[in-house]
């Protein structure tokens, strides 16, 4: 039994999400191979070869894979699939975009965002915005799975010494073309892998006021997140959104400021180790999941918190 893990990378380096997917693969059991599909991706492949527990790295280096277009990468995966019992990816935007396409081409019912491995064919995953845990058994020959990164520890990024094999891809499917991107520049840690996350909601009232949270975040070395309400109101960009339809985080400390705690937001953060809520409405649902709640006006509490942390 061999397992293929699709790497999440930026050609030069491996993204942390891949390390969590490797841990899920270890729980399934079997020889683990990592597929690095990219353009000029030797750096990412070398990093993948060092991951503890990885037996082999497959590097598909081709201009067709430069921007992880699903049409091209799914075809590549299908070409390799015959040697594998499981095909995994972290449930990042790329993984969620590519894997179902590969699964359908293989005539397999994918299992999305698993949070636990019960056996090589049985997995548990959250459904209904995390309000139910569903355990499913797959009868498909190849199991195609995306992994909820926050539910599995990261595999050690050093200690392995896998061989890097070049594999030829099927090239460009000619269906789609990458035109451009707008990347949010930030010096702070990545939201999904940050140890501490400070999030603001509608209560922040404006994008300008998020500066207060950023100051606190910088003191804590934290990432900044937001509720859907704050994103929809245009306070912060979309990729700050934490929740069922945004990013799923499980940091050691999650500070929710001016967030009421709708089901859809809780779905993205309720596995955090410690949750702090600052809200002036003492009946806000967020207090039901918060370990420490402070009923206060955030416009007083946040600057005070900033001052207190600076002591």
């Amino acid at each position, binding site marked *: 039994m061999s397992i293929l893990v699709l790497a999440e990378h930026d050609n030069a380096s491996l993204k942390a999400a891949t390390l969590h997917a490797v841990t899920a693969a270890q729980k399934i059991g079997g020889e683990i191979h990592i597929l690095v599909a990219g353009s000029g991706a030797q750096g990412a492949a070398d990093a993948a070869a060092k991951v503890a527990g990885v037996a082999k790295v497959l590097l598909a280096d081709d201009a067709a894979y430069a921007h992880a277009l*699903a049409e091209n990468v799914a075809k590549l995966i299908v070409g390799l699939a015959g040697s594998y019992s499981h095909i995994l990816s972290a449930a990042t*935007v790329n993984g*969620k*975009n*590519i*894997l*179902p*396409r590969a699964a*359908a*081409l293989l*005539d397999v*019912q994918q*299992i*999305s965002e698993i949070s636990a491995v019960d056996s090589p064919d049985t997995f548990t995953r959250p*459904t*209904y*915005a*995390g*309000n*139910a*845990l*569903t*355990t*499913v*058994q*797959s*009868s498909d020959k190849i199991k195609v799975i995306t992994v909820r990164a926050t539910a599995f520890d990261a595999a050690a990024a050093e200690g392995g010494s896998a061989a890097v094999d070049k594999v030829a891809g099927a090239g460009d499917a000619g*269906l*789609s*073309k990458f*035109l*451009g991107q*707008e*990347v*949010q520049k930030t010096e702070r840690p990545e939201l*999904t892998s940050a140890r501490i996350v400070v999030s603001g909601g509608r209560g922040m009232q404006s994008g300008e006021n998020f500066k207060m949270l950023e100051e606190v975040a910088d003191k804590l070395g934290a990432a900044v997140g937001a509720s859907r309400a704050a994103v*929809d109101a245009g306070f912060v960009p*979309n*990729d700050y959104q934490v929740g*069922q*339809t945004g990013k799923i985080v499980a940091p050691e*400390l999650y500070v929710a400021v001016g967030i009421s705690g709708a*089901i859809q937001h809780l779905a993205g953060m*309720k596995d955090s*180790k*410690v*949750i*702090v809520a600052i809200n002036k409405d003492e009946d806000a649902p967020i*207090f039901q*999941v918060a*370990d*420490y*709640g*402070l*009923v*206060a006006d955030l416009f007083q*509490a946040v600057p005070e*918190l900033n001052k*207190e*942390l600076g002591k």
Partner: protein
Amino acid sequence: MKVLVAVKRVIDANVKVRVKADGTGVETQNVKMSMNPFCEIATEEAVRLKEAGKATEIVAVSLGNAQCAETIRTALAMGADRGIHVQTDVELQPLAVAKLLKAVVDKEQPGLVILGKQAIDDDANQTGQMLSALLGWPQATYASKLVINDNGTANVTREVDGGLETVEVKTPFVMTTDLRLNEPRYASLPNIMKAKKKPIDALTPEQLGVDPAPRLKTLKVTEPPKRQAGIKVGSVAELVDKLKNEAKVI
């Protein structure tokens, strides 16, 4: 260009779902059901394309039990022209839905199929990708902006980790909607009345030549572990003290 919109009937987004005591699923009896929010956005986008003169006809399709007809009526009230209801009481998983939709697409020959990015019940986020794979069409997932070009292509801006990305896809293609694509309209009462006269064709998986049997067997459904009740602190100083000395997270 004909546009096909796939809509799903789900437990309303504001309902706090309850897991059944016997662990077979969640309680759906006497629970408010609605159109999946991402499917509303998909329907809205199709209607806007028609209003802009880019779409000629909008066909709303839903798959499932008899009540799914209500969901199709909602799409018709929003502006879809006619409906297709693939009737089955079998539990449908995304691969089966994609196969059934492919059969409908083969019959209808639309230039664009719009789906939501995920259904808020199973949270699978697969059907659009699977459908485009089966059709051999390009896919534009997590769309926050759609521009149909005159040369048989479309530019779609996608919400990705870290920002936005724009791709050009050849038509026909499959698009899935993200939250920011648009704000769905409410169906007005006159439009709800008019929607009752619009046709809905009924089909079965047998007629479409698709076996919809589930590939994943649900062994059990449980409630997630409950969090321990927390405490309320009286001041910011107390909060910081607790985080430093009790929780030891800062």
